[in-house]
């Protein structure tokens, strides 16, 4: 392997090390249990959510054939939130897995709705697609907020929509491994998603069942987004910034770039979480807030670099 190929894994290992020793409680005081119960689960959660969201972003970009979309700008996360509010209203005591299933189904329907919507748009202006997604997601998010407000669930919506890792503990994040599994599934079908990015006609010319590839992609994207929303809350911009950065340096042949996308997403979220623990030590800033600011800046820079 070339040194540059080792750079991403090496950086990840370094970040994991920093994450393990960063926090209010000091490990030197003999409080080793903190590591197993809190620090390592939190670190794993950051890595899984980051890898999953970055992979979901790149798949979304292939399906929508647009560089500027990701689960938080296509109504996916908001639909998952809406589904969660709905299931919490109807069956407040439902098991977590059931809530997760409803959130995934809602995210699936919401994202399929987004794709159907943008398919009708004239393809001339690529920015029309994310703009439509922002408005569409805004409407879904508003519906969730309204429902929640009526029934006093508003604090839950806040938790779901603003990614935060400080509450992650052993036994309370494990669903995120499903996001990791879905990211691996995405890798198995990587070629199909790359071809889908060439459009429906090319996909069909190469013998693909295009609707099936889209359905598969939607399940992966919706699953990753829903799991993230339920366990740690939505973390914005990872799915946008990471794939665009990787595309710049390594292209978009997903068979080759997906591992790098996943590792970069994992590293970015973990780095931002560590930053959030340090900036106002001993207080914490949620990782979603940090990525919201950082991601918005990178996004603006990307828009400018387009010209």
């Amino acid at each position, binding site marked *: 392997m070339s040194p540059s190929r080792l750079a991403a894994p090496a950086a990840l290992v370094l970040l994991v090390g920093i994450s393990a020793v960063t926090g209010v409680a000091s490990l030197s005081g003999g409080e080793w249990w903190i590591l197993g119960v809190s620090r390592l689960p939190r670190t794993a959660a950051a890595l899984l959510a980051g890898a999953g969201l970055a992979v979901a972003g790149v798949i979304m970009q292939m399906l929508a054939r647009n560089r500027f979309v990701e689960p938080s700008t296509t109504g996916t996360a908001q639909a998952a939130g809406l589904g969660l509010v709905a299931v919490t209203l109807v069956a407040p005591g439902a098991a977590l897995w059931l809530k997760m299933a409803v959130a995934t189904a809602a995210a699936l329907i919401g994202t399929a709705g987004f794709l159907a919507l943008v398919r009708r748009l004239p393809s001339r202006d690529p920015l029309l697609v994310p703009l439509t997604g922002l408005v569409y997601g805004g409407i879904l998010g508003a519906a969730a907020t309204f429902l929640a407000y009526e029934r006093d669930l508003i604090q839950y919506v806040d938790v779901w929509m603003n990614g935060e890792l400080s509450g992650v503990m052993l036994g309370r994040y494990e669903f995120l491994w499903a996001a990791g599994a879905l990211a691996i599934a995405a890798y198995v079908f990587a*070629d199909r998603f790359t071809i889908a*990015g060439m459009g429906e006609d090319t996909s069909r*010319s*190469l013998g693909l069942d295009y609707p099936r590839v889209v359905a598969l992609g939607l399940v992966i994207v919706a699953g990753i987004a829903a799991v993230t929303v339920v366990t740690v809350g939505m973390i914005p911009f990872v799915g946008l910034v990471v794939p665009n950065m990787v595309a710049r340096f390594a*292209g978009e*042949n997903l068979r080759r770039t997906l591992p790098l996308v996943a590792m970069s997403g994992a590293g970015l979220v973990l780095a931002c979480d560590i930053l959030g623990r340090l900036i106002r030590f001993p207080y914490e800033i949620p990782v979603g807030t940090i990525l919201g600011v950082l991601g918005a800046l990178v996004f603006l820079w990307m828009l400018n670099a387009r010209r």
Partner: protein
Amino acid sequence: MIETRALSVHLTGKPVLHDVSLSLPRGKLTALVGPNGAGKSTLLTALGRLIAPASGEILLDCVPLNTIPAPELALRLSILRQEGAVGPRLTVRDLVSFGRYPHSHGRLGVTDRAEVERAIDRLDLAAFSDRYLDTLSGGQKQRAQIAMVLAQQTDVILLDEPLNNLDLAHARRVMRIARQEAEAGRTVVVVLHDLTVAAAYADHLVALKAGRVAASGRPDQVVTEPVLSDLFDTEVTVAEVGGRRVVLTL
């Protein structure tokens, strides 16, 4: 061989092709000509099964096209579209490799790799093979798209205006490749606007006008002053230069 029987195609509800009956023989290069909007691209996309006919039939080697499973069709028929779509950021070699997808399903074997390299060489892309598509000129991109179609190595090859953006040397190269493919026993259909090129390279011409077949036959039957003047509603001169038909429009 492809046959169409009383083929009609509608686009967004509007009839575009009317009652087209054609035979596109194996081992021959057929040129599809006609004015803008005549329906050439529509015919080609229907032959590639990318749009469904409103009525009539398309037969591929005497079998109705719509009964062939998609993975099998991808092994037998390839198509170059007129509008080069923007897709993922790929290198030329990656793009051409995707032409092998129907054969390899993503696991490129020795033959696949050899076909990819051959297609790259045939389109004179060796110097650009590791460059990203978005860093190429219009003609280089067009050649990469053609190489992808060629790598698919299908019995039927449909090319919609492959000479778009090509300089004269590469236009000649592409037409020679199309001829070689036909002589190797394939069914090659090429949409062309340059009638001099069509007359020089095609075995067989089909002229479309307003969605109908206006003329078809050998070059000496179709590339004539009366037929072409009528086809394009403008005066056309056909001269003979060095034993070849040359179409003059100005």
